[in-house]
């Protein structure tokens, strides 16, 4: 084991020139770092420079008022870093990291399909997983859609 989680958090806070809102440990060797949405590209680039070279994936989740995006990074040894940021559900826009982190292309397109987040500056936007005839503006992982499905399922037994 290389560094402890505390050492990594300390190092991040010292080396990262921008604003870090919150840090916490998740599981054995994951650090969740919350940063403002406007600086997400800069923070992801910083993580790659610091040795967390691999973007594992991006998780999107609807928290009601906001949509939370988690950019999970890892390097060649623990701990791993997840950059957490939130954007407003009624105006879900964020800068795309794909021009700087090419590994993000599929993940951003999938979140665009399922949660309706617009990744501005994505070099190849467009439907990835939903069918061509899927209605515009219906995002299957939004809370209201999950609620609708649950009601429909209970009606149908």
């Amino acid at each position, binding site marked *: 084991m290389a560094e402890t989680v505390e050492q990594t958090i300390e190092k991040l806070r010292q080396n990262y020139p921008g604003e870090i809102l919150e840090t916490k440990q*998740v*599981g*054995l*060797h*994951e650090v*969740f770092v919350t940063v403002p949405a406007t600086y997400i590209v800069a923070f992801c680039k910083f993580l790659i420079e610091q040795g967390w*070279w*691999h*973007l*594992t*994936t991006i*998780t999107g*989740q609807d928290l009601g008022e906001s949509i939370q995006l*988690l950019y*999970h990074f*890892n390097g*060649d*040894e*623990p701990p*791993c870093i*997840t950059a957490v940021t939130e954007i407003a559900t009624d105006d879900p826009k964020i800068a795309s990291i794909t021009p700087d982190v*090419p*590994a*993000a*292309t*599929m*993940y951003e397109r999938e979140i665009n399909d399922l949660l309706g987040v617009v990744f501005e500056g994505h070099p*190849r936007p467009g*439907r*990835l*997983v*939903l*069918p061509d005839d899927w209605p515009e503006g219906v995002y*299957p*992982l939004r809370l209201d859609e*999950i609620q609708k*499905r*649950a009601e429909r*399922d209970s009606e149908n037994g």
Partner: protein
Amino acid sequence: MAKITFPIGPQHPALKEPESFKITAEGECVVDVDIRLGYVHRSIEAACLARNYVQGQYVCERICGICSHIHSNTFARAVEDLLQLEVPARAKYLRVLVAELERIHSHLLWLGVAAHEVGFDTLFMYVWRDREVVQDLLEMITGNRVHYGFTTIGGTKFDLTPQMADKCTEGLMVLRERTEYYKQVATTESSFLKRVEGVGVLTEQQARELGAVGPTARASNVPYDARWVFPYDAYPELDYQPITSDLGDVLGRTIVRVLETFQAIDICEEVLRRLPEGDIQVRAKPRVPEGETVARCEAPRGEVFYYIRSNGTDKPARVKVRTPSLANWPATIAMLEGAYVADAPIIIASIDPCMSCTDR
């Protein structure tokens, strides 16, 4: 020369699973590729939200028919982390045993598919015949050829009897001998080499930038393997190194997978020797405390990633699954660009893609 754009898939004789590649070619060379997924999308992430954790584990196991154990194992590990459960040592070893048997079966399956894609159907038939040996072992231990239902939250469902262990040892000896032969064929048979050498090259830099995982990344000299980088289950007690190759082409990926099959056989034998006595399961509460967690496992195709958030009830609030095939598509596009159209099927097959995993 004029460029033409044509589709491979979603229904195509050269591609056995439904996924759509829109290929733009200039003469015989591929210049651009666009991928469209979702033809086997089953909304598994959404389905998990309507089910409790025990049901969710079964749903997640059905993401993939080849690496099903890894999905249920990763899900269980994430929930155990939220519950702060310590799994018994014997269960940890048994999980590794099934995971490595699954790796043997998956890599042999891939070798057969790759042989078939390059027109070497004799090898395909041979490999798939011998793959039955490991399938029989898995059926003996878990009761099923696929969807083993072996892992449960808090341990494993089935124990290994001494008779079963003896059968495993015998089966592994047969597999080692046969894999030795396949290693020789894959590295010396000229008709095979001519179709795979220098085809679908992925440089180390590309592999890192495009986020490749598993044997695809390791064949491009990126020594990233979740089993040894973030050891889980019984892996911290097993001392092995990631297998890499610096060839970066389809041959490199073949060699890495064949050598990993040997490594998996070694690990199985060591697990059988060192299997501790004791319980195989601890009780898990149905309600999971509020929180979020992440679990990573090394599937035969690469790292599987789960993110689970709990809201304190018996159903998860979010389950995110990242499968290795999805992570490898950007790298596949890079391999295809500049390649010959005729090599597209073997290049696509070389990452061992699983479309059901990709779509979920």
